[in-house]
Structure formats: structure tokens, C-alpha cells
């Protein structure tokens, strides 16, 4: 449906599965997801850094049927509306991900959260795994 191809998805697996970011060797800014040049200074040399998965919510929304991409239709139909948040990781970069293991009412800006490995969706017969976030207990 969506069609993020296997090679495209796989290229970002170190980010999607294990939070490997790229630390710019010039300005030390942590870039995530990785890009060709540093978001801050444009530098192109990086060292790999595994991020902790801890952060806090920057903003969030609850997605109902009208607002969801078709990859998530089955999920919406069966288990209902879901929450998506932009999370500021403790190393600096922001990521966007679904929330899990919590009710919408528990969410608020600045809530401390942590990453957890989950099934995200399916495409081309493959389970696409990735990271969601949940409140820190």
C-alpha cells in the first residue's frame, strides 16, 4: 500500500531497530535519523553513537480514522485510535513515533518516555519492526 521499499526500509534498520545515530565530528551535534550532512553545521564526518532511547514528549496527537495512512487501517479498525508523538531524545535530536502501553489521557508535553521495540506495520509480506515509545515507569 504505502510502499516504502525493502531496500529503503532496510537502509534505516540500524536507526529503526537500535537507535544508532551519527555524531558530527565537527560540532558534536547528534544527528538522527542520519543524513548526508550535519543538520547544524553541514559537516560530513560522523561517528556512530547508540542512543539511549530516553527522552521526553515535545508534542503529540491522537490519530482517528480520517487522519491515518492506509498502512494503519487494520490497526485502527481493530484496536482503535492511536497516539503519535514527537519526542526529544536526551542526546538532542527529535524523533516521531507511535506511543504504546499507555492511554491517551496519560500523555502530556514533557512527559519522560523510553523506546521499546515493537511491530509497526506489514508490507510486501514482511513484518516491519521499529521503535515506539512508552511512559517511563
Amino acid at each position: 500500500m504505502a510502499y516504502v521499499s525493502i531496500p529503503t526500509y532496510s537502509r534505516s534498520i540500524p536507526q529503526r531497530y537500535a537507535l544508532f545515530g551519527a555524531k558530527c565530528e565537527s560540532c558534536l551535534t547528534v544527528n538522527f535519523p542520519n543524513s548526508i550532512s550535519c543538520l547544524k553545521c553541514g559537516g560530513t564526518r560522523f561517528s556512530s553513537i547508540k542512543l539511549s532511547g530516553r527522552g521526553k514528549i515535545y508534542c503529540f496527537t491522537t490519530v482517528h480514522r480520517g487522519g491515518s495512512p492506509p498502512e494503519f487501517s487494520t490497526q485502527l479498525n481493530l484496536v482503535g485510535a492511536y497516539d503519535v508523538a514527537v519526542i526529544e531524545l536526551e542526546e538532542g535530536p527529535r524523533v516521531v513515533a507511535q506511543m504504546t502501553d499507555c492511554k491517551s489521557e496519560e500523555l502530556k508535553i514533557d512527559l519522560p518516555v523510553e523506546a521499546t521495540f515493537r511491530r509497526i506495520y506489514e508490507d510486501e509480506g514482511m513484518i516491519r519492526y521499529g521503535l515506539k515509545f512508552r511512559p517511563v515507569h
Partner: protein
Amino acid sequence: MEMRNVSIIGVGQTKFGDHPLLNAGELFAQAWTEAVANVGKGLDPKLVQEAYIGTLGVGGGQLGNFAAVVGEAAKLTGIPITRVENACASSGFAFRSAYLAVASGICDVALAGGVEKMRDLPPDRLRYWLGVSGDTEWERLAGMTFAGVYALMAQRHIYQYGTKEEQLHMVAVKNHKYGADNPKAQLQRAITLEQASKSAVVCLPLRMFDCCPTSDGASAAILCEGEMAKKFTDIPIRVLGVGAATDRLALFQREEFTTLKASVLASRQAFDMAHLEQRHISLAEVHDCFTIAEIMAYEDLGFCKKGEGGKLIEDGQTYIGGRIPVNVSGGLKAKGHPIGATGVGQICEITKQLRGEAEKTSRQVPNARYGLAHNVGGSGGTATVHILGR
């Protein structure tokens, strides 16, 4: 190279909404025919030398070589025609391209337009297409389409500036009021604040009436070199300011979520070129794909200070009679949003308003002199601002 003056000599637009029996080419032909007929002193269509048509190509029916389809539909086969795609800002950029073609002297008469067919797709396929202009790899796979992305902007705007959810709904109420008086609008029904506040949630805090509909529609505008334009019409509408910009594709990779940098940059360019300030503008057509987008547009275009967009709508300043009437066509919210056609659709509205030709006086801005059209692609990856004047 000296840039020449450019004026608009004719505009046309289909009703936005459902056109189940017309394909994209036929839909465009309707807008084009109306534009030709709209030229005050008549225009031989063969004089059009170049055309730029904006479309996303929703549905994928004819993604490649759509220019040839337009040529056949408008009986313009032979001239150079370019399909322009910048998501929802497609025809804003098409208009820019047509302007550049005439201003640079490459041609004297150019056509800018747009078209989109969105209403003939089943829900899942439509939602797929609605998502193609967003960041696919990260935002989409986190479960968001534009409604989600704009909902995040709304939440931050509320958090950072104290904007109220109610103020979002006030935008919808205003635009529906004006849409009800616009025979070209898709939704011609006024709504109350209560209806808007109680409508079904799409992505919190955005509800159904905070989101523009999907639409079929087409628009066309004929541009002509400034002096030559007087041969075709007694009321040429001059293109005074032209601005365009881009920003990062994904919202989460931007510094600030409460402003669209592309809008700010494009706006500055247009005002600088026109040698005008915000206080000169008689009316604006802004890109209200979601109500929060209109509130942010008030700020990004400089009509009020950052964070005071909510106050502007609440104080009624964006109604006719207020400081700056915004979206008296009904906006994307009530007029509709056929993605490729919206940008030039806004140009059509401003042109008519500046000529005093709105169909109902209830939505005619009195003594309109300068108008601004603001068109945004997706969640702000691209944007154009055009300033027109009598």
C-alpha cells in the same frame, strides 16, 4: 535582464466539489473556457504561447505526460506545456512559472492553471495519496498524514502561545459563512461554533470542521505582458509581488513547529518586490488546509505578531470590515481543496475581488486595491506568496 511587468487578463474556475462525470482534462477545459471568456475585450486562444499546469496527479490515472492531456483538452496542443508539482502549492508554483516566462520576455501570453480529481477513489487509496506529500519514511510510518502533522503544530501553538481550541473552530465558522455565499464553493452551508466544537475528532485537537475537504476542481489564469494587457482588458490586474521558498520536508526536523519558514520567506520576498506593507493589503487568500494553518498564516504573513493569530480571529479582524479580510472565498475549508487547482483558484478569487466582481456583495471586499494569495505545499515544504494590485 530587465523584468517586464505582468498582468492577469482573464480567470476561470470550475465549482470545486464533485465532478464524477468529468475526467481531469475535461475539468481543466471548463476552467480554461471560462478564463478565455472572462477576458474583457476578447482573446484568441491561439495567442497563448506557454502553459504551466499544477497537479499532484492524485489517483495516478495519468501521472506521466499530463501536459499532453491538458493540451488536448484545452485545444492548445503544440505549445510548450509543463506539469508543475509541489504538492498543494502546485498551481502557486505554476503561476510563478508563468509569471517568470512572461516577465523574462520568453513569451507575451501565458496560461497558469491547476486541476485535481480526488473524489473518485475509495478511502484507503485516497488516504495513500493524501500522504504522498509528507515525509514518507518517518512521519508516515509513525502513523501520520497531514492531519496528524498539523495537529502537532496546533498543539504546540496552543502550548506556546495560549491559543484556544475554540479559536481554531472560529476560523471554520468564518470560512463557512463566506463559502455559503460563493457559488463556486464545495461547502455552501454556514456552521455554528458549537457544531464545529462537537464534530468528530480527526487528530486531536483537530476535528472534522478544522480540516478541509477533498475536492475535484480546476482553475485557470491568463497572464500577459503589462502594456499588451491593456489591449485585452480595461481592468488588468497587475502582478506586483512574487515570492516562493522551501523548507525541510518533515515537521519533526524543523526547529519550530508553530511557524512555516517557507511562508515567512515567500511573504517577505513578495512584499519587498511590491514595495508594500501588510497595512496596504485589502484582502488575503491564505492556505487554510487546516484551521491552525490559517492562524499561523496570519502570523507568518505579518498580519499580526507571532502568537497573536488566535486573538486576530477572535476579535473578528479577519472578517470583511476588519483589519484584514481573509478567505472571503470560503478558503480551502469551505471552497474546497482540489490540490493542484487551489493556488490558481486563489489568484482567481483575488482577481475578481480587485475588479469588484464577487457574485454576492456579502462577500465582496469594498474598494479592494491590493490582494495577497498564499499557497503552501504539504506541511510547509514549499510555499508561494503573490501580491496582486489594481
